[in-house]
């Protein structure tokens, strides 16, 4: 990585050397930055060759994955033609989508054949975001009562599927075909980072799987414009646009808004109220709810999320990351929420490994795990009045 022909990869190697510490047990008390680059994987992981050789039995476990991640990063910068980034159009009514795994999905969605495993890793890294949402919401979802979905979960997704798969109205483009259209399904993505800067045609894949319904994607989070501020300068805050939202109309059936703001601030103003479980859904892509660095911020947001009674879909980078989030929710609001989707591995996780610059030994896959919860709904119960 530090002898890479690509300048951005050399910068990345330098960044790893600046931030990462040697994982050798000798450094338990005296951490030292990494200097030595393993010749097999090309990622700087140890402070010296001696420590690398001494700890080789641990390094060999991740060496192949590191090398794969390194090669994939170089592949993206190679400037080759990427036939896998051509996406198909709308799904035919007659053709059903098979959500069993990536391969059956790509085949039934009429993608071009992705034969090379590397191409598959690149394309799943992007598609994992919309497809993870679709695999939960779609009526052909792989998650059902026999597989991770709970009774409460079925109630929530049935409400959304009622909106997403409406009966045909007979509407058309001429005067005779004018029908009243339902409002769009709003998907709020809180703490948006990488997902808000995905190519819009990747997000547009979501509408192709639900051709009759409309979507409004709302990216909310202080980092939702990171790396894109030059391309999309945030508008000034005016009376008509009090939060400086950027609104993009991707197509007639999809609108994308971006808010550089914490969700609890927006919720307090009632911008998005009222919430309707038939139309609204929250998605948190690797939020790090229980991560010591971000838990404090989520603590303000969580009660607001539970208050809406809308399903919240959460993903995690790794099994540990996901379990930490689940435990944190259990700690903070035990008994106040219903589990909708039992935590487990995501069928549409990214197949590409991602290297954490601050710790190269901590490899992760985007959206590795997926689970879902919702604020508990208290049904009206009858209380027998005592006879006087």
């Amino acid at each position, binding site marked *: 990585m530090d002898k890479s022909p690509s300048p951005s990869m050399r910068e990345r190697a330098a960044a790893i050397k600046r931030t990462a510490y040697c994982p050798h047990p000798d450094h338990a008390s005296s951490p030292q930055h990494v200097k030595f680059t393993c010749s097999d994987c090309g990622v700087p992981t140890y402070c010296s060759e001696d420590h690398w050789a001494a700890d080789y039995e641990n390094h060999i476990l991740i060496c192949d994955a590191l090398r794969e991640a390194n090669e994939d990063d170089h592949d993206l910068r190679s400037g080759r033609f990427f036939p896998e980034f051509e996406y198909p159009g709308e799904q035919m009514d007659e053709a059903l989508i098979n959500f*069993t*795994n990536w*391969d*059956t999905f*790509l*085949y039934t969605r009429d993608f*071009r*054949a*992705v*034969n090379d495993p590397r191409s*598959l890793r690149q394309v799943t890294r992007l598609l994992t975001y919309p497809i993870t949402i679709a695999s939960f919401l779609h009526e052909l979802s792989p998650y059902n009562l026999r597989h991770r979905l709970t009774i409460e979960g079925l109630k929530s997704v049935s409400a959304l599927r009622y909106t997403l798969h409406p009966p045909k109205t007979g509407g058309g483009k001429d005067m005779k075909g004018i029908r009243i259209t339902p409002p769009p399904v709003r998907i709020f993505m809180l703490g948006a980072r990488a997902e808000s800067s995905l190519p819009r045609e990747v997000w547009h894949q979501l509408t192709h799987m639900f051709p009759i319904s409309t979507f409004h994607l709302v990216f909310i989070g202080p980092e939702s414009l990171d790396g894109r501020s030059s391309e999309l300068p945030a508008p000034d805050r005016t009376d008509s646009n009090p939060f400086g939202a950027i609104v993009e109309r991707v197509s007639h059936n999809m609108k994308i808004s971006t808010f550089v703001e914490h969700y609890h601030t927006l919720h307090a103003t009632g911008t998005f109220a009222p919430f309707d479980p038939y139309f609204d859904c929250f998605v948190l892509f690797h939020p790090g709810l229980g991560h010591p660095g971000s838990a404090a911020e989520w603590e303000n947001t969580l009660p607001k999320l539970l208050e809406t009674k809308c399903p919240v879909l959460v993903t995690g980078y790794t099994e540990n990351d996901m379990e930490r989030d689940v435990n944190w929710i259990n700690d903070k609001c035990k008994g106040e929420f219903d589990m909708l989707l039992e935590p487990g591995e995501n069928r549409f996780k990214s197949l590409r490994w991602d290297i954490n610059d601050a710790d190269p030994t901590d490899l992760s896959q985007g959206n590795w795990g997926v689970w879902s919860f919702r604020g508990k709904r208290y049904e009206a119960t009858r209380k027998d009045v005592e006879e006087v």
Partner: protein
Amino acid sequence: MIPTRRLLGPVAPRSSYYQSDYTQGPSLIRARKPFLVKNLLTGAAILALTGSIYLYTIKAVAQDNFEDVTVPDAPTQPAKTPNVGTSTITSGPLGK
């Protein structure tokens, strides 16, 4: 050896899931993998059903040994017919 099919090139634009010699590409093989065992089992079950019906029919037909048909011991003699063979006319103008 290059298959002749590959030299001739594609006849018409077709699915990218097949290679130029009309064999399945790796992505199609991967997509069919979860269903391979189940499909083979279903195919075997259908084959077994048709095969068993066929064999049963053959066996059932072969069992018919025509017990109900009475076969006479000697071939039956045809009834005596007049005006055939040596003259048996004994009366009338032709009679001797």
